[in-house]
């Protein structure tokens, strides 16, 4: 009888731990995502559109998860310092210049998290640590 109670207690406790751990990371994700949405509106939406649709052959869409995966390490640098070399997104070439954005590493992490989990992308959280590591290798 006693053992049963102990087991039940242990199970309950571990369930609590798991739940609270999960909600901790999901709270962080939500915080990044919400802040990122605001930043997106201010810094990105004019060109890339409210739905990340881009603008025909002029401005690339943000719906190509493969591009994000292939360029994971340079994404923060590209947003922060702009892009001027031609790129291929969704099988289409784009040559327009992307202007630099004067935003902080935490803001970069937030906006990347937002973009990579919107418009059909599901690439999870990008942390401040990741962005800082990537930024040290900006060309």
């Amino acid at each position, binding site marked *: 009888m006693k053992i049963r109670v102990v087991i039940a207690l242990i199970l309950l406790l571990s369930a609590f731990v798991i739940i609270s751990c999960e909600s901790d990371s999901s709270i962080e994700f939500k915080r990044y995502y919400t802040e990122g949405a605001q930043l997106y509106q201010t810094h990105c939406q*004019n060109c890339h559109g409210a739905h990340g649709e881009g*603008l*025909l*052959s*002029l*401005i690339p869409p943000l719906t190509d998860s493969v591009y994000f995966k292939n360029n994971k390490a340079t994404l923060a640098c590209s947003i922060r310092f702009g892009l001027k070399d031609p790129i291929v997104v969704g099988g289409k070439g784009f040559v327009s210049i*992307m202007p630099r954005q004067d935003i902080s590493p935490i803001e970069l992490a937030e906006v990347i998290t937002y973009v990579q989990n919107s418009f059909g992308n599901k690439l999870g959280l990008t942390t401040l640590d990741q962005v800082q590591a990537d930024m040290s290798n900006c060309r």
Partner: protein
Amino acid sequence: MKKVVFGLLAISVWIACKSGEQKTLPIYGSRKPITKTVAGKEVTDTIYQTVPKFKFVNQYGDSVTNKSLDGDIYVADFFFTTCPSICPVMARNMLKVYDAFKKTGNFKIISHTIDPKHDSVPVLKKYADKLGIKGNTWWFLQGKKEDTYNIAEKSYLVAVSKDSTAAGGYVHQGYFVLVDKQKRIRGAYDGTDPKQVDQLIADIKTLQTEPDEMIVQ
């Protein structure tokens, strides 16, 4: 008999005008009354401000003058191809206008570049291509910078800048200006606001139903 028909017609037109809640668009700009003698009678008429003569070059390298737009309702705006801030939004919204009217005749869009140094004819052609613009409904116009600013401030933006002192201030604010077949300014819309652009599309339809008046030019 003829007289009766005419009378009925006149009455029905009058009723239609009065009862139909047909919206008429305002006419912007300066106006002056002019008195002239027509068939021995003194008649007072109003001369409205119209878009003056101009000459620019479009994305095909063809010259475009005020005459090229004779008989057209058109929308004018100001942009430059490397503008990162509001121009993509304007282009996105203007595409809506383009798609709504590209198949109807007597309609045009003219987008003036305010950076003619960079936006040469080939640059404008590339820009148009990237937006999928073909044919002669939407022209991207290049000319002397002062000519563009002049026509913007003295003519197109009268509906916006009633007493503007900031030189060129409104040119950068992304207005879409609606001009009727008589080359009078009939509206100005914030080209970055989708709601105002919807209003522009509605107003163009209203203008299209306006009878062709005598063109005083």
